[in-house]
């Protein structure tokens, strides 16, 4: 492993060397683990659909950790996970790789997807719809039976290593019609739907993740349920599990519940004064201080 210890205390490692070594906490909501495991074994690309903060990233991390026992050809630490956050200006070269000038020569460096294909990693394209359409086409040959990555600039064709799997995430909520996935892209993936967990499970997650006691976690989960009722009736998005975890952390560290909810939920969710007040009223109905 090519880890460089720096003086200032941070660790710098190559992406393909990154391993999740400790079991991430993931609370299964339904049969998603089984689905993913099967997909992985059968090399079926996976699309994770769901609102922000509903556990997609956490799920992929968990799966990457969990799947390491099943892979024979890679080191025992597990399946590497290479994550790419997609954005508007993401180009094909950003994913595949490009030449850099080095002195009078040039040097090729692999992009993340190329690396993943080579080492047999899970390549996780977060928020795929943000990427430009011409970029998304690039993954087409990778995601059908061929599992090939063409590298145009070098005139090469790369065959994926065994453990390689392409996983994308996608939040169908706030996308406009403009930014929808092309059908030819969509239909190369099986989809696992994520949604915010039911009250009790969400309470458990909040409790485990934030350290706040179970009773408060339960109330936070209840609050979340109520606030989510406002989705599309004043709110563009319901409150995410992530925000609830943040709120739990604030409360666990001494901030009063009403105040914690105000800063981490109410203000984070919307700028509309009336909606803010309505949510605050829900908060004060649930928490008495």
């Amino acid at each position: 492993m090519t880890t460089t210890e720096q003086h200032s205390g941070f660790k710098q490692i190559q992406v393909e060397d990154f391993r999740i070594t400790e079991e991430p906490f993931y609370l299964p909501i339904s049969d998603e683990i089984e689905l993913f495991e099967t997909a992985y074994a059968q090399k079926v690309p996976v699309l994770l659909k769901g609102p922000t903060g509903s556990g997609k990233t956490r799920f992929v991390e968990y799966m990457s950790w969990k799947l390491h026992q099943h892979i024979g050809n890679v080191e025992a630490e597990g399946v590497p996970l290479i994550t790419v956050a997609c954005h508007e200006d993401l180009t094909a070269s950003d994913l595949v790789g490009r030449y850099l000038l080095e002195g009078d020569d040039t040097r090729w460096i692999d992009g993340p997807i190329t690396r993943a294909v080579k080492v047999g990693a899970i390549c996780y394209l977060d928020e795929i719809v943000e990427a430009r359409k011409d970029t998304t086409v690039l993954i087409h040959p990778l995601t059908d039976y061929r599992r090939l990555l063409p590298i145009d600039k070098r005139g090469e064709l790369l065959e994926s290593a065994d453990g390689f799997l392409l996983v994308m995430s996608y939040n169908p909520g706030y996308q406009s019609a403009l930014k929808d996935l092309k059908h030819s892209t969509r239909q190369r993936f099986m989809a696992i739907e994520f949604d915010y967990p039911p009250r009790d499970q969400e309470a458990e997650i909040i409790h485990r993740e934030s350290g706040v006691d179970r009773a408060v976690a339960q109330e936070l989960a209840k609050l979340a349920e109520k606030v989510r009722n406002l989705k599309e009736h004043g709110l563009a998005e319901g409150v995410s599990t992530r925000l609830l975890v943040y709120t739990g952390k604030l409360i666990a560290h001494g901030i009063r519940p009403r105040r914690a909810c105000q800063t981490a939920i109410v203000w984070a969710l919307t700028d509309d004064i009336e909606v803010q007040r309505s949510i605050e009223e829900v908060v004060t109905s649930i928490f008495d201080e």
Partner: protein
Amino acid sequence: MTLSPDLVTRFSAELRGFGSSLPDDFARAAEAVAEVLTPEEVERWAQSGVDLANHSLRSWEAAAEYFRASPDMARRVGFAGLQHWVDVSTTLSARSSLIAAAFLKSSPSALDVLSAHELDAWSQQGDRLCRGNWKSIALAALYFQTSPALFQSLSLEAVGRLVDIIDQLTERSYELATTCLENSAPIFAGLHAADREPFLRFARAVTRASWADTRLYFERGPRLIEAVDASQRATFLDLASRVTMAVGRQGFPLFADAATALAEVETADHAELLGFATRLAPGSPQAAMEFLKSAPFVRTRLTADQMQRWAETGAEILTVEHNAEGSEAFFRLESTRAEEMMRTLSARVELTSVNGMLRMYAKALSGEQVSVQSTESLVDKNIGWMSEASATTEGTAIYLPPFVNTFEEQAANFQVYKVFTTHQTARIEFGSFGYRWAEPGVHAPVTVPDREARRAEAPITVAVAEGESEPKVRGEAATAIQRYFNLFADRPLIGGLFTVVEDTRIDAWVSREYGGIRRWLRRLQSYEADHRPEVRTMGLRQGFVENLLRVSLARPETVRWPTTLQEYLLRGIAALKVIEQPGATVQDSAEVAAAIYDIIVSLPNIVADLPEGDWVAPDEDMISIAPGMPSGGGEGEPGMMPNGEEVAFENPPQPEFRGDFKPELVQLLMKLKLQQQGQQQDGVNSPLTKEQLMELLENSAEITISEWAEGDLASSLGMFLSNLEKEAGTPAGDPKQKGEGDTGDQPGGGDGSDDEDLPMRIDYFYYDEWDFRAADYRPRWTRVGERLLDEGDDDFYEETLRKYHGLVMETRRQFELMRPESFRKIKKLEDGHELELDDAIEFHVDKRAGVGPIARIYSRRNKVERDVAVAFLLDMSASTDEEIEKQRQKYDKDDDDDFDGDPRKYFQWLAQRRARQAIEPPKRIIDLEKESTVLVVEALEAIGDSYGIFGFSGYGRENVEFHVIKDLDEAFDDRVRRRISKIEPIRSTRMGPAIRHTIHKLNEYDAKVKILILVSDGRPQDHGYGRDRTEKEYAVHDTKQALVEAKRDGITPFLITVDKEGHDYLKQMCDDIGYEVVDNIDSLPRRLPTLYRHLAAE
């Protein structure tokens, strides 16, 4: 002294030529006079009479009065006085014997008050009224007739002032003067002594300001001031005089309104109110009166102290800001400042100010599309809910009273609203209306099927409390809850019990689920418990329910119950506690209520006549009793039943925060709704028959038929039923909140074809208006009705395109040229479409120098989505009907008087004009607007920006019409095309509200750049849009203010006007707002793209 018979004979003879009674009058008087006067004096007295009689043709009538009044007068004034008296009379008789007669006749009673030497002054007052014509003579005579009565309440001097007033009135109308004089005596007699002078002073002011109002004042004044506190009437009248002197003809109406207002305020407050008004009066008499007029309304919202603080602010506008108009508007409550101040000061919370927020709150809690509305609207629907004071729900909406004023702090009253809302929402959330027949609950065993069976066996025996003698065979129930209620003979009792039990369950759920609101729930429960009616005067059954209610309000210590019957109550309370346990459902409530019903009906409904000591306050046992259902049938022997009178059962009143509960009606409504949607529901038999419905309504304890049925019961029921059916047909959710987040999710097929048959839909919006004089907004002053413009034919659009083919093409080309601007070049990329030479060179230099390892030398053009929304607002007022040519002619003449000196030029011009007109009809402003619209549409379609086209007109502030030709998010299609052809002049031009509504629409629309283009003839004008018809200032200021508001909201306003004369208004309106004058459609395409590019620049 004796009277010489000779004298009588002598004078009688002289008097014989006059009226037949004169000698007799004389003879009788002589006899009496002789007792007071010496014979010589009698002689001279008699001679004076004869002289008077001979004075003129009809003066014998005066003489008759002279003789008749003489005995009395002689005694009062003696001989010298008599002499003077007759002299005065003679002078008067020179004017008219009628006047003299009246004077003479009234003299003795006048002297009851006046002293002898005041006779002259008195006679002169009457004399003054006489102008020689017969009307004035009659008036003067009337004056003398009524004066003795007047002197009872007014001094001579004051009567003199009254005469002034009467005299002044005669210049306008003798009839009016007469009426006023006639009424004066009783009026002044009816007034308090201290009020008479002030009343007179105000009368004088009124007469001067507006003579015709004097009649009204004399008629209504006394009654009006009667309502004013006695010690304050004089102050009030003096204030009114002062105001009237300042404001003129408005004086009396202001007085009348202020008096009416004072009548609505407690008299104890009058002194303070009037004191304050008097303080305002010097600065603005008008403000003083407006203050009084608003007082009753303000007092309903503010305490005396708060009102004082509020009023001080209004006074400061006057005294510190020196803005009289502002202060008047403030006190007239036509000012945002006044309203806002009131809102902040007042403890009272209005539903309108919290409604939107509570709606979202209720949605959040329940997860349903509930709306929040005022109870007033539910009562209006006439579907069984009668009370505007109680919160309630009919299953889809929450109805709240229009305001809450329970506590003294605003925050507390808001919490009251919140508890109201939470309770009603909880009914929906925790299933109060979801009762299902015979389904098990969590805590109580199911008994209803057994009860039904038992009831079938012995259907009549239970009908004790019911007034009906003939048992009716009940048909099958329409709803599950009705089937349940049918089990019980006493419907009001089971209804009341079910309500108490179910509300207890709901409160328990709310307390458990919403820890934060518990404190306020407790406070309200406690508040209610402290305001319960006396138990001891109730019948036992009613008292039982009342006590359960108190327990359910968590205040068991307020229970009062006969000691001997304690067992009964204990069992009832234990049963009630079952429902407070976690998980309890409405099924449990039904069973618990049934069990308690059994206990209660074993008691007679008598008012127990017991000594104080025989009523228990609750002990430990009662407070800490464990939940438990009463053991089956264990009614036991009734203990010592107290004596007392049997009374009819009536449910005790519901605590306010729980509101009205009508599960039977709600289930019926829900069922009707499902039926109308064609969905069949499981459970009780459907569909409903008319008979079933009628039976439900007749038997239900939830509606009091007598309260709304007038006359024929069957037809009232029928009407009621059709109301219910109509209600069931209307979709859930807010009717008015369409498109405001609530995506119009109407159930049932709502395809386009249905729309055609619907009546025109108008959505109303309210906007403030700017009153520049008051420097404040008039709150919710205008009402804008938004509707779709009718569709005309297709021809116009096509025609215009054809006519201006070249222009259209040119405009389009111009607009298309704008497009490349929307591409943005991004530089410093590692990879891109083009190499940036500068960057590349720099990179190589850097590299030589050993820095800058990444080659960011490429650039790329990114297409930036245009994000522009523009709203066109077209003036559709009547003035746009004007021909443009005519206008041009007008200013042509004004501006360049060229041809004045050269008639040939003029005729040339005229001939040209005629020729032009012969080819095409004269073009009106509206035509120009319409044609430009076509051009603009074509251009904007080419460029792809979002745009809306709206027209406005209307009449008066309540009727601003806003016509949608194309909404911002609507696609351009044939319908829009047809609507454009329907653009035509309608009525007035109130620009402010139309602009404000357009702002509202743009604010709702999501775009980076927003533009509002107002196309008009530049003349805002409407009824009441200014002090009078000709004033422009008010309208111009309001319009300008609206445009400023647009800017404040990040919208770029722009004005296009088709009126050169309007230039000046526009300049004033637009100091820093863009404007342009267009008088020719040909110049539009050249201007538009430049203009638009300029406006839409990011």
